[in-house]
């Protein structure tokens, strides 16, 4: 019986987290666009606009290129599925998510990478120039962000002696000094750069441009329409919310529910939403005052992130 209760509680946590991240991710996009509009002196679209767009897209006709293979069809599904999988088991609302003992940070990185790769392959699949161009640029950036991300994981897991993600979050709650340690601060700075690059935000990519030739991420999904595009949008915004959720819980772990009780989950959800919203507003505000870097400058920025993460690793070895 108690096993069944535990299973129910775990499922409950997973459902809450997935709903929060999938729905909240779209609202997060809305909040970021609103922030940007306000900073530029415009009214901007309502915060719920991305949600309405997805509802509209779902009801529209699905058009796929004649030459599309199952790879094209699988792209959005894999992106959304990997985001949902990681969301279900990541320490977002609670530091005791389902399968907590198996939620390894390395595994999280690799599962999310699967989504990126499937989208790049799907973009190549249609053989349109923009798809190939976007995929080529995205993989180039991916090849630079992944080492940085792995170095981030290393820097975080060396002092904790584990790469278990819930454990890394709990460690911060238990001992606040860990959060303020130079190693973790350096690693989290690098993590933030990686998140900006991976989710196609400025100064790496401009999510609001209509200029096909400058696009990175948008170029890959140009061929999707209707429900497929809705799935891409939901999957991508969920990735952004998920990554920011992990980031804020590592940087400011307080408020994360220690268990799986209903009250705890409610408080944990509210705190998570607040923290991610603040992070999103901060990123959007930063975006207002920056511009898109020349494509060939990106390696410098991403190499910088890698160096930051490596310094994080080094400092954990020194200060131990």
């Amino acid at each position, binding site marked *: 019986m108690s096993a069944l209760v535990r299973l129910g509680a775990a499922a409950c946590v997973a459902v809450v987290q997935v709903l929060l991240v999938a729905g909240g991710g779209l609202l997060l996009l809305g909040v970021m666009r609103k922030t*940007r509009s306000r*900073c*530029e*002196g*415009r009214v901007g679209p309502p915060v719920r606009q991305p949600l309405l767009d997805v509802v509209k897209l779902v009801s529209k006709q699905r058009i796929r290129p004649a030459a599309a293979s199952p790879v094209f069809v699988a792209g959005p599904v894999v992106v959304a599925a990997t985001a949902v999988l990681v969301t279900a088991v990541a320490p977002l609302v609670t530091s005791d998510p389902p399968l907590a003992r198996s939620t390894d940070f390395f595994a999280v990185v690799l599962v999310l990478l699967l989504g990126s790769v499937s989208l790049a392959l799907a973009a190549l699949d249609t053989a349109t*120039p*923009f798809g*190939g*161009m976007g995929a080529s640029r995205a993989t180039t950036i991916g090849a630079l962000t992944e080492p940085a991300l792995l170095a981030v994981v290393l820097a975080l897991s060396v002092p904790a002696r584990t790469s278990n993600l819930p454990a890394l979050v709990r460690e911060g709650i238990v001992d606040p000094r860990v959060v303020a340690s130079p190693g973790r601060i350096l690693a989290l700075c690098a993590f933030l750069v990686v998140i900006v690059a991976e989710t196609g935000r*400025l*100064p790496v990519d*401009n999510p*609001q*441009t*209509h*200029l*096909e*030739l*400058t696009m990175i991420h948008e170029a890959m999904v140009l061929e999707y329409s209707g429900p497929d595009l809705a799935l891409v949008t939901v999957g991508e915004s969920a990735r952004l919310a998920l990554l920011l959720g992990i980031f804020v819980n590592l940087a400011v772990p307080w408020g994360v529910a220690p268990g799986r009780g209903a009250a705890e989950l409610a408080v944990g959800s509210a705190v998570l939403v607040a923290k991610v919203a603040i992070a999103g507003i901060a990123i959007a505000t930063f975006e*207002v*005052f*920056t*511009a*898109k*870097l*020349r*494509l*060939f*400058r990106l390696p410098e920025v991403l190499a910088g992130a890698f160096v930051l993460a490596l310094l994080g690793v080094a400092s954990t070895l020194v200060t131990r």
Partner: protein
Amino acid sequence: MSGDGLGLAGGGGAGLEEVTLRPDELVASAAALFGRGFRLALVGAHDGPGPLRVVYLFTSGPPDRRVELHVVLDGRDRAIPSLASLSFPASRFEREMRDLFGIEPVGHPLARRLVLHQHWPSGWHPMRHDAGDVPEMLDDASPYPFVEVDGRGVYEIPVGPVHAGVIEPGHFRFSVVGETIVQMGARLWFTHKGVERLFAGRDPRSATEIAERVSGDSAVGHGLAYCLAVEAACGIDVPERARELRAMLLELERLANHVTDIGALCNDVGFGIANAKALAVRERLFRLNAELTGHRLLRGGVVLGGAELRRLPTVAELAEIGERIAEVLDLARSSAVVMDRFAGTAVLAAHEAEEIGALGVVARASGLGHDARVAHPFVELPGGFVPARRQSGDVLARFELRGDEVVASLSLLVGLLARPGAPRALGAAPARPHAGSGSGIVEGWRGSVVHRAELDDAGRLARVKIVDPSFLTWPALAVALRDTIVPDFPLANKSFNLSYAGNDL
């Protein structure tokens, strides 16, 4: 305009020379003019009544000099010696003439279609007097002859003619290695409307509105060039006050367009805040324009023989607008990323701009000095006006030059406002209409706009030939893209911001 007719004396302005030549004398005469520093500003063919004629308008200045070479073709062979080896602009005009009139440029190195796409039936030339109705188009599926680049890792990116934004139609074919553009071919001419033909047979007074719509953003530039051409043809005297008002309208148009471009350049590198501010200033200018002329794009301000404004702008309004533009420029300059994107991107060297015959903002950003406000002035500008120039020829130079020109336009406007006078001024009603020809050259915001008008014996328009600076400047874009990377193309293109409608009449 009231009155029952137009002007008395025929001929053009003070520095005009007309020479009639046989076709075999053309090359030597043209070479002599090029040698004396003239540029070929316009080539217009005329078909009927009478034999087929081609008029070459050569200009230089200051002082304002214009030489027209009139070449009458033999009835039979419809061929004319090509000037392509002397001048690149000539080669473009000849290809245009070949498509529209069927005049064969003998010795042209690239005698293939320019204006008309493949599906126009061969042997049918829309500007011939006996062209008749538009025949059925034939798509023989023959591919457009883009230059194909072969080699390891070279791939092509086709873009357009339908783009994701509200942009005019143009197809661009990039041959790329990695991200570096090896070769770019632009296929334009998707918007052929037969504008020049619309003028034929009209009363000159009722055709200004067509000229104002040649390129929507250059209503004053084209409207004024048209009026100057007709006024020269009819010998209409335009009062000094009207000339001053026209100069103000021209600078107001320049302001609105340059501000738009300054914002759009920032937007193309993802710096939306500068664009938002620039768009607000643009809207402010449009509303001011509407108050001044009744139209946001200043249509109706320039009229044949004069200029009509509802009121004059005030110095305070201009000062406020100037401050807001300076704010946008400072904001853009304060961003290291924006400056990095602009600097060194899509460089057009001075000698390239000169050889191609590039005009206006593009040419002055590459260090050339041509400006019709100085070379072909229609009014004495205040304060010893000297056109701004930049040397580096990159996107940054074109951005900063627009900033320089905004400052110059504002100070010109303030200087012109200091001269007393009414907001409207019209020339005396001219007498009977009669035959004549004349040209009008105006420094529109993109560059020199040239119109040449011919009137028949009844005083109606027989032919108006229009040259938008875009026609001559478009080829420079492909040259400037050498060593530019694909994601910088939209920025490079925006920094040129050439007209498709004005290019393809």
